[in-house]
């Protein structure tokens, strides 16, 4: 019963955030100076022609009317069409989403692959050189801007060594090997930057475990530190790790947008940048709305995942 109530409350928060975000997105994009009519008609357009095109595109209607029309469309799953070429926004988003999803997926997996072992070592060896080295590397990593890291990787692996393509994208179904080779550097860039942030959290989560009674007991019955940490520490540390990961989702998405433009990947980020430049407002609104939806969904999933990780939360009165 308590669980149902908690889920219902979560859903309510979810919907209200979505509605608020839609209003904010609409107002901000419509406050941008310049419009798509000008981009379409170019520099020779007469004011009459501009006004006519604006009327055709419905850009001359009051803000409130346009917002409600857009919102009404969203509710039934209609994101509208691009003003520039008439393609439905959802049709533009879908292939871009695939690219961004791969990037985010490999970025997050890669960051875990780096951060979890490194964080554990940093916790266990915190008073000797491996610990110091890892902590220092994490600090340096956090100070490196994503785009710079990306450019450096391109310089080394594409320009000097010619091992990997410098940028671009090939869909998975067309050529899997090419697809993978085009994703390595972008995913590595994203993973590296995220890992630098995560390592600190993993380290402190495991440091906490080191002070727990159960860990001392495990050590007392003769387990090695690493074995005790893996067996008992992992699940406990996972709770704070998942929280951080959930909070990091938005920064991973922002990072993905930057990485996409460094590596010219045709993902949501580059779509958004192009659409803003061309004032293709419905595409901008649709893309941002989609990103908001993704972030809200993931944070909801993070909340739910506590129930999976921590059995204590599943029992009555265990709400955090």
């Amino acid at each position, binding site marked *: 019963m308590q669980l149902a109530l908690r889920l219902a409350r979560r859903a309510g928060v979810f919907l209200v955030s979505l509605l608020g975000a839609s209003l904010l997105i609409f107002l901000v994009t419509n406050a*941008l100076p310049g419009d798509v009519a000008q981009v*379409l008609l170019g520099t020779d357009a007469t004011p009459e022609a501009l006004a006519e095109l604006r009327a055709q595109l419905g850009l001359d209607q009051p803000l409130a009317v346009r917002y409600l029309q857009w919102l009404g469309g969203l509710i039934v799953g209609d994101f509208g069409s691009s003003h520039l070429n008439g393609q439905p926004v959802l049709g533009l988003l879908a292939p871009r989403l695939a690219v961004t999803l791969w990037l985010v997926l490999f970025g997050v997996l890669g960051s875990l692959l780096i951060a979890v072992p490194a964080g554990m070592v940093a916790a266990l060896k915190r008073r000797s050189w491996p610990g110091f080295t890892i902590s220092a590397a994490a600090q340096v990593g956090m100070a490196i801007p994503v785009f710079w890291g990306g450019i450096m990787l391109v310089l080394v692996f594409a*320009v000097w060594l010619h091992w990997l393509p410098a940028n671009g994208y090939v869909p998975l179904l067309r050529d899997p090997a090419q697809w993978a080779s085009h994703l390595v550097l972008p995913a590595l860039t994203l993973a590296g930057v995220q890992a630098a942030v995560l390592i600190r959290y993993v380290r402190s989560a495991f440091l906490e475990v080191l002070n727990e009674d159960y860990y001392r007991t495990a050590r007392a019955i003769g387990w090695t530190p690493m074995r005790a940490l893996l067996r008992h520490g992992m699940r406990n540390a996972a709770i704070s790790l998942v929280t951080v990961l959930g909070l990091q989702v938005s920064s991973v998405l922002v990072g993905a947008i930057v990485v996409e433009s460094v590596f010219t990947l045709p993902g949501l980020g580059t779509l958004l940048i192009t659409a803003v430049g061309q004032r293709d407002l419905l595409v901008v609104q649709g893309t941002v709305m989609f990103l908001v939806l993704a972030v809200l969904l993931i944070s909801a999933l993070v909340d739910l995942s506590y129930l999976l990780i921590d059995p204590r939360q599943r029992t009555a009165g265990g709400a955090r």
Partner: protein
Amino acid sequence: MHAVSSRRPHRGPIRALAAVLGLALAIVLAACTPSSPQSTEKPLRALAVGATLEPASMDPWHNTAASIPQVLLYNVYETLVKVDTNGEIKPLLAQAWEVSADRRVYTFHLNPAAKFASGAPVDAAAVVANITRLKGDTRLTETLRAQLAVVAGAQASGNNQVQITLLRPSTMWLYDMSSTLGMMLDPSATGDLNTTSAGSGPYAVKAHNQGQSVVLAANTAYWGNPPRFDEVTFRYFTDPNAMNAAMLGGDLDVISNLQAPDALSQFADTTQFTTISGTTNGEVVLGVNHDNKALAKLEVRQALTRAIDRRALLDTVWNGQGTLIGSMAVPTDPWYEDLSATNAYDPDAAKALLKEAGYSSGLSLRLRVPVVPYAVKSAQFVASQLRDVGVKVTIEELDFTRWLDEVFTKGDYDMTIVAHVEARDLGKFANPKYYWHYGDEKFAALYDAADQAPTEEQADAGMKAAVRYLADDAAAIWLFALPNLVITKATISGVAQNATTLSFDLTTITSR
């Protein structure tokens, strides 16, 4: 270890996670090894061209973006006549043409071999159908509508002979016909022109991968010299560094126009790369708003021109690449002459002129520029030089669409910097509503007389006089003409030296 694991049943999820992570690592590592070139039966002759602006559509008639004709003109859609690398008009679909004595009737003799990709002939009926279609198109871009306004009508005077009649003589008209206005569309085309093509050129649009590339495939039934590549890909880069990296990494065959001349040194190795340096139609204009009280005065405009050392500016901001022009014409224009010595750099004279105009105690101007490399860099240089003669300049950088709205449309600026990339575009100064608000009647009269001159020689002489008038009147300040900097792999040859049209002409390019 095994004994422990049997006592711990809930270890499953962690093990699964480890397996997934391991698999991901394996994929990443596998991809790291360079893939060996796949041997197919017949090697695909492919060309990859790097470009900057991605077209939103493949329809040049309803979208003014120059990135569309860059891909399509001469490559996919052909015109009756084309402009070559030296700026001269040459036959394409028309083998020959005659102009009537009053310069109002043009008779084109079409090449009888010419046919569209569909197999239909490019005959007189097809040309007439194209002119009629454009005349009746209410959604046609304003640029094309203005260019078409001079055309009275077209009629077939034989199977392969067509007569186009103008309302008045026009020097510019035939040039316009060598560009988007003259692109011949297959009258039987029914496909969506946003995504497909129906031209008579050596290539046809195969795919537009939004966000990255446009792919052209060879038109195997082409009526002229067979295309030299099976597939040509235009790849788009918003970041010039990314384009350079792709070229250095071997993923591109050609950089269609290098965006940052300071990157030239990266391609200095002539065993790997060829650098082509020519001219474009792009005049980088420091435009002044003639509605501004101070800038309406000739002395002030002359003073501003004399205060700016344009040679030093070109060396500083564009690595010395480009041409000093001094007025609204580029070296490939028939009426070009070097006017960079008009109102030459002389800061003392500039100060004297400002004093004469009553601004010795100072003048404050807003320089509002779009965020494009040449404008941002030039603005810094201009501001510093104007400061030296006592003019206070405030620089504002605007995103391009905002610039279009506030500066270009609403005229909210004192000075701005933008490249005018259209060919033979001095006529813009004859339009008082254009964002400079120049409206000088003497210039407009000179320009109209030149455009409507009875002979070609008189037309060119008239244009020359008009161009000179602009320089003398300091109607704007011409910083330089953008260079055409093309980088190719050493194995590529035949790329046109000068960008005289909007087209990136593939028809002359070969690979060995």
